């Protein structure tokens, strides 16, 4: 397992550099170079332009430029200075936006995977019923719906028509006037508490699994652990002075997360269903039936566990959908994340920010692939053995 992870990690590392080199190529393919952007300005004398070309290293051979590009992006953490909000550094802009995108991306992926798997499992079990047909039609609608239009409809329905949720944005400015906390610090604390709950729950699960062998008491202990952790987190936030601000941020996240989840959930449902239908034809399902294993156990333990494998693989292919959906979601809900930074930079012709945002989205996608691969190896022993 460790060997497999190390190998995948090495591959991802190499791919990251190839990706960065590709970004350089993209910049280099443009007509002229970056200093040309300033040629139109009559206030800049020609000598200054020569100095600028030398300072930016544009007179050096391409291979040296590529080396600088790779070095600055990976080790120097230097992605240049933004043009549209000079003199802010690109890294500063992007790392402020990063947690928001990661939050949107992770919650939507996890929620949609969980919900989609559950629905797909039940639907496959009841093949041919009205429930199955209606779920299928709904899923196909969500899967093929034009996402920006759907997001606009959701925004209109929940924010404008019902008025339950705010119309986009990350915070309500009026609430935050005079606030002793910055929005980002509150948000990061929220993320930390979610991460802490997940981590402690994982450790507790391991401990519980080691201590008991009875599946039923294991399941009960898992539930007790999860709910008590959630209770601890709730109490922590209820007595924290940041709670109104945290609630405000939470209130703004509901509709974007819901929209992104609904669309991705449909894909997982469709896949789980077909994967489940294939698994149900296997001989070991028949054997389990013949043995008199309860139907729910056959469904959850024998079929669904094995049907999960192709769904996990497809998670990798679905990442593209989540990332594209994330960019559009951020744009429509004015969610100040990486995607919005990218679009804003493209509209403002702010090349350093655009390239930085693309690189960072690429890194996110690489990491997500790595996680999916490791999960897959964890679920399927064959992958581990083959290496």
């Amino acid at each position, binding site marked *: 397992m460790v060997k497999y992870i190390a190998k995948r990690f090495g591959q991802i590392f190499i791919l990251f550099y190839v990706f960065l080199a590709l970004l350089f190529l993209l910049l280099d393919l443009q007509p002229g170079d970056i200093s040309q952007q300033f040629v139109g300005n009559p206030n800049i004398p020609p000598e200054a332009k020569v100095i600028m070309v030398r300072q930016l290293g544009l007179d050096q051979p391409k291979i040296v430029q590529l080396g600088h590009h790779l070095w600055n992006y990976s080790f120097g953490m230097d992605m240049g200075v933004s043009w549209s909000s000079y003199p802010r550094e690109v890294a500063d802009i992007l790392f402020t936006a990063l947690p928001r995108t990661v939050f949107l991306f992770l919650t939507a992926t996890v929620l949609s995977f969980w919900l989609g798997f559950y629905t797909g499992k039940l639907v496959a079990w009841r093949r041919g019923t009205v429930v199955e047909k209606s779920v299928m039609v709904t899923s196909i609608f969500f899967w*093929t719906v034009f996402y920006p239009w759907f997001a*606009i409809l959701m925004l209109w329905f929940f924010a404008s028509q019902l008025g339950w949720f705010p119309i986009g944005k990350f915070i309500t400015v009026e609430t935050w006037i005079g606030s002793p906390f910055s929005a980002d610090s509150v948000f990061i604390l929220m993320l930390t508490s979610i991460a802490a709950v997940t981590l402690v729950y994982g450790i507790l699960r391991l401990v519980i699994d080691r201590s008991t062998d009875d599946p039923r008491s294991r399941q009960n202990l898992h539930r007790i652990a999860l709910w008590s952790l959630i209770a601890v987190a709730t109490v922590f936030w209820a007595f924290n002075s940041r709670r109104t601000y945290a609630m405000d941020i939470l209130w703004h996240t509901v509709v974007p997360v819901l929209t992104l989840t609904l669309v991705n959930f449909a894909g997982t449902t469709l896949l789980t269903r077909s994967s489940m239908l294939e698994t149900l034809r296997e001989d070991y399902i028949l054997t389990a039936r013949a043995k008199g294993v309860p139907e729910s156990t056959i469904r959850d333990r024998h079929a669904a566990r094995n049907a999960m494998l192709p769904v996990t693989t497809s998670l990798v292919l679905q990442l593209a959908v989540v990332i594209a959906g994330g960019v*559009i979601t951020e744009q429509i809900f004015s969610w100040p994340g990486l995607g919005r930074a990218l679009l804003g930079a493209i509209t403002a*012709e702010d090349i350093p920010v655009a390239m930085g945002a*693309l690189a960072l989205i690429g890194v996110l996608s690489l990491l997500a692939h790595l996680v999916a691969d490791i999960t897959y190896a964890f679920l399927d022993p064959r992958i581990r053995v083959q290496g």
Partner: protein
Amino acid sequence: MADTLTPPTGELENFDPQRVVEEPLWRVRLRLGWRSFRRNWALFNDNKMGVVGLAIIALFGLMALAHPILMATIWSNHLEGGKNVYDIRAGADSIIVTKTIVEEVTDPLTEISQIEAMFLGTGVNIPEIGDTIESPLANPAPPVFSGVKHPHILGTDPFGGDVFSQLLFGARAAFLLGAIAAISSVALATLVGTISAYFGGVIDTLLMRLADLVILIPLLPLLIVVSGFWNVELTMLGILIGILSGLGGTAIILKSQALSVKVKPFIDAARIAGGGHWRIITRHIIPNVLPLSFLYMMFAVTGAIFTEAALSFLGLLNIQQSWGIMINIAHTQGYTLEGFDVWWLMFPAGLAITLFSAGFFLVGRAMDEVVNPRLRKR
């Protein structure tokens, strides 16, 4: 021992070369093709969703054909201010009508509020209620549903263009883009997949690592950056999407199919008969991979249409008119939160994109059952 070597008797003795009707080879091929088509159609027909998808595609095909015909006949001479009202872009934005200044606007087509009139006028005199003023019909007046002088089946957009005409034209643009993207993507994927399966070794490793890289690149963000740097048009976008999606996942799937074909005995037979690499690939492997290629063509169309519409919606493409641009215009002109009140701005275009994608998706799923026997119900 000797009698084992004699040819089988019986049938051969009655064999009369005169009785054999010479049938040309093309007719044999056509008959075989027709037979396999009928068999596959029966399988395809089992899945009613696939038939629905086919009907949707046919409907959009009719729409795409209808646009140039309507423009040449019924819509040909509805000129207003030198422009055709039904033109996809020009529309009625040049129509100037006389509006009465009133306190409360009940009919935005003939009336205008005092404040709006102030902005329209020269700004010196405050316009009196009851006066008339020359005002453009469509902008800044809200989009209308019914026609003023010319019938607009689906109303007009914020610039006064006819929504129905734009919708029909959008079908044409969608077919064009879908065809370019799907054909280039699948052609590339088939070629890469079969070459890498057939030759193996270094070529295989290189092409498959390239495929890994392409899968990892987030397509939409990359295209956003590309469209920011260059002037991307419909054809170029189609080819770009085709290359990026063709080198990735589809190539890997088609390669695995080509691998299973490559080990079949008839490939060895072809090689022993003296067939060259190129001939074996084009005549023996590719025809056997083709059904799966067609399947992925359907899914490639769905992906391409979504990407184009998303980029148009974000206002990054340089194309004349498409469904994405219709939504973009309604969005940027501030009709995002109007919902059903101005349904004709976003619903026709949004539903068109959704249905178009759904049509190809459904046909793809039904074809999956034809190509992949494990999925069949029988």
